[in-house]
């Protein structure tokens, strides 16, 4: 990663401003808002998986937990500020506990994946079976399969009757994504972030160098969950209903797919993958000629065959080859890599 943090900040601000100005001319702000939220959710997994090497099959659990925490708290408080804070804290604490359980138990790799998967399934099954009237938190009925509709949506802090909705809500979400993106960048630039990447590359070596690998992974895991929780709360505000499908296996798998499609190990990739695929789904729904499940599947398979590293790495490669400084050695190396790729493929 080149350049300094302040340069990062300037780029983020400029790009965000341009996008906020241009995008509403192309896509309606209501749809844009959810694309942004999915982008944030993608980023949350991109952080812990792409940079921390933690394959989490249950990012949807934190997303759903954030959304449900917000909805339940909003019904009880009738004001949105504390619920927003809780929606970030509850998933983070939950993830810290779960992470500590896993990482201090020396779980790695697919075993970690399966634990997160199982925890998501448990949450999903629990929430799904809360249709009965006995499942109440404060004034909020959990509602089971049908979810919780009709809670207080985002308002100006301290003024419960002044709702933030429509275009203003879009601006709030866009700015929050930019802030989160900047914070993730800052985290990755810090020594904590660099050590996290080190752990991803070689865990044993980092622990022999004296770093407490388990604690660091737990913290990173919780940070990712906090971002997912925030995305969940924003999603709850956007849809004005939360349902157990937020916790579902399909949702978890989709987040993983976003990260791979966008490009793992990049900050921008998961955001672009998430927004891109969600928009694709939105466009597909306007046709009914061919089964949309089939088309989506076909696109993903073609994708993995022709753009195996994801969108962002592919574009940045192309950029480097066409416009980058013409260092002979580098281009040769890239050609070699490409040739090898072709020989294998």
């Amino acid at each position: 990663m080149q350049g300094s943090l302040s340069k990062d900040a300037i780029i983020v601000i400029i790009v965000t401003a341009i996008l906020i100005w241009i995008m509403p001319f192309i896509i309606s702000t209501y749809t844009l808002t959810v694309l942004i939220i999915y982008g944030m959710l993608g980023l949350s997994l991109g952080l812990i998986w792409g940079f921390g090497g933690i394959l989490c099959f249950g990012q949807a659990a934190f997303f759903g937990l954030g959304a449900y925490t917000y909805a339940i708290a909003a019904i009880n408080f009738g004001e949105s500020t504390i619920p927003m804070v809780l929606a970030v804290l509850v998933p983070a604490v939950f993830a810290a506990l779960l992470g500590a359980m896993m990482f201090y138990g020396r779980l790695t790799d697919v075993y970690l994946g399966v634990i997160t998967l199982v925890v998501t399934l448990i949450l999903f099954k629990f929430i799904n079976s809360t249709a009965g009237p006995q499942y109440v938190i404060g004034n909020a009925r959990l509602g089971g399969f049908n979810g919780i509709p009709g809670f207080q949506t985002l308002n100006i802090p301290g003024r419960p009757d002044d709702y933030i909705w429509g275009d203003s809500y879009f601006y709030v979400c866009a700015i929050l994504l930019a802030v989160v993106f900047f914070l993730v960048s800052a985290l990755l630039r810090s020594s904590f972030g660099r050590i996290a990447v080190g752990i991803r590359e070689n865990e044993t070596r980092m622990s022999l160098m004296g770093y407490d690998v388990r604690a660091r992974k737990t913290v990173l895991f919780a940070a990712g969950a906090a971002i997912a929780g925030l995305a969940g709360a924003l999603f709850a505000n956007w849809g004005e209903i939360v349902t157990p499908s937020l916790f579902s296996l399909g949702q978890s798998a989709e987040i993983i797919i976003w990260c791979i499609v966008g490009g793992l190990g990049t900050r921008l990739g998961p955001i672009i993958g998430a927004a891109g695929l969600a928009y694709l789904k939105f466009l597909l729904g306007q046709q009914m000629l061919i089964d949309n499940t089939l088309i989506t599947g076909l696109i993903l398979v073609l994708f993995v065959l022709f753009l195996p590293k994801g969108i962002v790495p592919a574009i940045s490669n192309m950029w480097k080859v066409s416009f980058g400084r013409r260092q002979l050695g580098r281009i040769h190396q890239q050609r070699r890599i490409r040739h090898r790729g072709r020989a294998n493929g």
Partner: protein
Amino acid sequence: MSLNRRNFLTSTAALAGALTLPRVAMAADTIKLGSILDVSGIFDAYGKPMNMGMRLAVGEINAAGGLLGKQVEIVAYDTQSDMALYSQYGQQLTRRDKVDVVHGGILSASREAIRQTMRKTKTPYFYNVLYEGGVCDRNIFINGVTPAQQVEALVPYAMGKSGKKVYILAADYNYGQITARWIQKFVADNGGETVGVDFFPLDVSDFGSTIAKIQSVGPDLVIAPLVGGAHLSFFRQWAAAGMNTRIPLASTTLGVGNEHKVLTPEEGNGIMVAYNYSQELDTPANNAFKERWAAAYGDTNLIHEIAVSNYQGIMTWAEAVRQAGSIEREALIAALESGLSIDGPAGKVTVDPKTHHAVLDVHIMEMENQGMKVIETLPQRQPIDTQAVCDLAANPSDNTQYEIEI
């Protein structure tokens, strides 16, 4: 869907229509009907035939000269069984496409995802699906049967054919929970006893130990409001254990999405159900409907309860537009609240002015050779469950889904 040429052509034409019409609409003067359904994904067994029913209804309206001298134009979206897409397309229909009416939604969650948007934008909304009851909102009209309408008819009949001890197996979500409570009430009202209630998450597909448990209790009748593909396994495993000849079964859900056609005749025969519609309903209206459906889509195999509900919902709306002489919302609601009724394939459907639900015929049926043989028709059943909590005449600004106390 078996992919034959006729099918392909109709869907191609429909697609071409869906893609080109919005642009034409800018210039031409049409009435816009918005439709939101899961035409692909895990709920497509419900959504596809509903979509076909909708297109059939609109085609017929247009062939007869349209409404108020204008053609009805369809703006349809496929939500791909994704709840978030309901919110997105709901916004798109009301704000960009500015449709005059919306028909659609399948699961209760999908209805709740768009109901408030419809209310805020003052777009009349028709939800044409059998559901758990209790929605009270002046902007919405619902014509599916509710649990009390079905259960009130089904329980006495089924108990009469079997005995007093009833075991309930219900899907573990809102519809199942509420239906189970109604069943318990009507079992008690008819002098019976509920000897066991079990709830199953929607993805459970293994019922072996449950079947053993039922036998250890020994009921006279099992009522099973189970939902979806995984739960179909219960009926097969029940038959595999040879129980289908020992204890009679009844259900309030089997067959809504044509599930009974997945069961073989030996597995399905004799199961008792109660719905608004059956393909085997031998009335002139239904026979004519099936002919029109066959002319449009090749065969009538896919017609099911909620596809007909959707068809009847659109016909109800069309009749209201004719009577009101306008597509304006207040005039439309006034016409609907005048106790308007239509004669659909499943019989007479009357709008209940107080609840905006439907007064309709409930047919008690038994499965026979993958069909539902009509045993008895109970005409014009009131939606008594929703009527107990909802009165839009007295309280027009109500906007809640009530949980009905029993």
